[in-house]
């Protein structure tokens, strides 16, 4: 087991190096001089030179690369060019709303997908099953911002049940916080549920075919006792993995959906940074997000190995 853990942890090092290299090269994708692009055509020569020095663009290429690496390893992602903050501070300031939204979305997704997936699997081939499969096809096809806008049209514009946009932090009270986050969270929840329902259904179907399920039925257990106690428990590990792996996708979804509702999260930070050409923030935020996801995936893999011994034995 220890060997598996060490191997798996070491395997992310090359990926992290490639990822940080790519983020470094991002700024060099800009056609022409990034400093000139940031400051616009009216910039003075001294201002340009100052900015170049600040961004390290006046150094030779290999020195820029080395500086970047040593800074990143020490956790220094530079300063925002426009906000008087470090990139890390700006990121942390905007992380709260995004996480809050993603967690609410995940809870809604789990609440929908597990019962619906179980019911669909238990009624395989029926009309319920077909309706569920249409729901998941729709959910996988619809872009999240579009679903968000459709929900706004129905629940805010036509029915006036929820605010069209905006955000209240948790400090303004739990109820306003939830009320403003409901539509964005439901959007994410529905889309995520479409995916998780498929996983739950197929995972349950696999288990329901086993002989011990027949045994449980022939012992005279009730249908629900068999499904919950015997089938679902065994179908749960793949579902848990899918939930973990899709959490990254959910956070990205939250970042996009935020922009629909003007929620001051990571999405807004990125969009503002792009419109102001605040490259340090863009680079820092993308690197932080990618690194977090790599680590989340690592943790899920390790947990999976812990929960299911077949995994760690097969991968040796």
């Amino acid at each position, binding site marked *: 087991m220890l060997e598996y853990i060490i191997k798996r942890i070491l395997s992310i090092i090359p990926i992290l190096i490639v990822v940080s290299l790519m983020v470094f090269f*991002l700024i060099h994708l800009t056609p022409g001089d990034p400093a000139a692009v940031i400051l616009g055509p009216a910039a003075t020569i001294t201002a340009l030179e100052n900015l170049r020095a600040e961004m390290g663009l006046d150094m030779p290429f290999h020195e820029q690369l080395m500086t970047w690496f040593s800074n990143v390893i020490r956790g220094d992602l530079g300063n925002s060019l426009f906000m008087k903050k470090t990139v890390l501070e700006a990121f942390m300031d905007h992380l709260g709303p995004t996480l809050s939204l993603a967690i609410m979305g995940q809870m809604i997704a789990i609440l929908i997908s597990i019962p619906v997936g179980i019911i669909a699997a238990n009624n395989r081939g029926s009309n319920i099953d077909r309706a569920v499969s249409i729901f998941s096809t729709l959910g996988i096809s619809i872009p999240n911002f579009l679903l968000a806008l459709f929900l706004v049209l129905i629940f*805010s514009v036509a029915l006036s049940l929820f605010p069209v946009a905006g955000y209240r932090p948790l400090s303004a009270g739990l109820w306003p916080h939830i009320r403003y986050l409901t539509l964005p969270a439901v959007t994410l929840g529905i889309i995520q549920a479409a995916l998780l329902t498929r996983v739950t259904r197929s995972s349950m179907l696999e288990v329901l075919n086993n002989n011990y399920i027949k045994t449980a039925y022939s012992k005279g257990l009730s249908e629900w006792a068999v499904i919950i106690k015997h089938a679902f428990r065994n179908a749960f590990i793949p579902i848990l993995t899918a939930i973990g792996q899709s959490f990254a996708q959910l956070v990205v979804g939250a970042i996009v959906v935020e922009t629909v509702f003007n929620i001051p999260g990571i999405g807004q930070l990125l969009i503002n940074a792009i419109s102001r050409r605040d490259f340090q923030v863009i680079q820092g935020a993308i690197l932080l997000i990618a690194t977090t996801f790599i680590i989340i995936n690592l943790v899920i893999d390790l947990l999976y190995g812990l929960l299911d011994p077949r995994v760690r034995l097969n991968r040796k």
Partner: protein
Amino acid sequence: MENPDTFYDGSKRIKSEIKKENQRLFMRRLLANKSLLIGGIILIIIGLIAILGPSFLSNTPYQIFAEERLSAPSREFIFGTDNMGRDLLSRVIFGARVSLFVGLMASGVTALVGLMVGLYASYYRFLDHILMRICDGLMAFPAILLALAIMAALGANALNVIVALSIVMIPTVARVIRSAALVVQEQTFIEAIKAQGAGSFRVIWVHIAPNVLSHLIIQATYVFAISIIIEASLSFMGVGIPAPDPSWGNIIYEGKIHITRAWWMTLFPGAFILSTVIALNLFGDGLRDFLDPYTIN
């Protein structure tokens, strides 16, 4: 003694009958495949709207009717008008051209480069390590965020959207092609061809490539669907197709602040995005079943 000609004729007749029977079976499988059929029909309709639609329009997508700003769908403006007083029907149809063109180009470039990367990675070990590490790195970024960052660096225009989409999606296609190509290379006929002295170029392009083509076609369909979604999302966030050119995403972006007054600016382009993506996903699923009848869904 029998005339050799009649024998020849007979064999020809049998051959043509076998061919006819095969065609009949092919058609029957095609018609039995509902996802392929429905997806295909919707795609053809949307394609026809994009190609032929503009010739039936009375207004250009840029023409401004200042007095008619944000007017609801009517006989004159079937889809209503936008915040600047432009005919929304015309903008949605020209938007279809832009969105479909970007999606088509992105999936074409992705399929081509993904095929090359996948094939060469599967054939040469030293390339495999380098190319697959690059793919791992690219896939570590969430697709939309990477596309967003690339757009921020390159600047917003249609060509850059195609570039960004391709960079984001090539790794997935390359991986699928690589693993399919590895399976093909295990087979004896590749060994036989190599033993006959075929060069690597010939082995890769004449013997391996055709055998991974069905995977490539299926992937290209899904990539097309994802391109439509990502392009719409980028344009919706204001970093995709820049104004005044219409795309489904940026029409919705412009309609966002007017959503309480002008539902049509969201609903119509949204319906087009949704039906295109659903049709492409259906078509892809159908194609997968059709090209590879052994996979169990």
